C-alpha cells in the first residue's frame, strides 16, 4: 500500500492504494471523477522528492503527493 495525499486547494483527504509504480497510481486516480480536472495541472512528489517519470517503482509505505498549481509571494 502507498499513501496518496492531495495538497493545497484540492481539499481531499489522503487515500491508501495498491500500486507498484506511478503508472498504477495514475490509473487509480483517473477513476475518481473529482480528480480528473486536477491531474493534468498537478506535479508529483514521492516522499517529498519531485518526480518526472511514470515508471518509477513504489514500495510499501511510500507517500505520493499531488501538488496543484502554485502561487507563492
Amino acid at each position: 500500500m502507498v499513501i496518496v495525499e492531495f495538497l493545497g486547494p484540492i481539499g481531499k483527504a489522503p487515500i491508501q492504494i495498491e500500486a507498484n509504480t506511478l503508472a498504477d497510481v495514475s490509473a487509480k486516480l483517473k477513476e475518481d471523477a473529482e480528480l480528473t480536472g486536477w491531474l493534468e495541472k498537478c506535479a508529483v512528489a514521492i516522499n517529498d522528492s519531485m518526480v518526472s517519470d511514470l515508471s518509477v517503482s513504489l514500495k510499501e509505505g511510500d507517500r505520493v503527493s499531488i501538488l496543484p498549481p502554485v502561487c507563492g509571494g
Partner: protein
Amino acid sequence: MELYQGPLDTKKIFSRWLDEQLTSNYGAYIPFVGIIRAEDGIEALSFDIYEPILQKWFDEWQARAIQRGAIVKMAHSIGDVPVHTSSYASAVFSPKRRVALELIEEFVEDFKANAPIWKYDVKNGKRIYAEDRSTPMDGAGLLA
C-alpha cells in the same frame, strides 16, 4: 528559511538579515519584498505551504547561490495576510552587484514557478483558490 503565521515584519527581517551578514564581507544586499495589493475587493490573501518540499527547494537554491559566492534568504507567511502588509521576503547577498542582480531575479522567478505554496483570495471571510494566477509546477501533468 523562515515561515510565519500571518503577515511578515519585514523591517525586523531586513535588519536581522543585515546583522547576520555584518562581517561576511558581501558588497551587495538585495531584498525582494512582496506586499499584498488591494484589488478585486479582497480583504487579505491566504497561503497554504507544504514545508518539506519548500525546504528542499530552498536548500537547493542555497547550494546554487553558494557555488556563485552568494547566499539567499527567504521568509513567507502561512494563513491570512491583510492587504498592504507583506507575505513574502527574500534576499540575496553577494560580493558583487552583478551576481546579486542576476540571482535575485532567478530566485524570485523560480520561487513563483516552483515553491509549493497555494494562494487564496479572502473575500467576506471566505478563502477562494487563486487558480487563474497559479502556475503548474515543473513536471505537472505526469499522472494525466
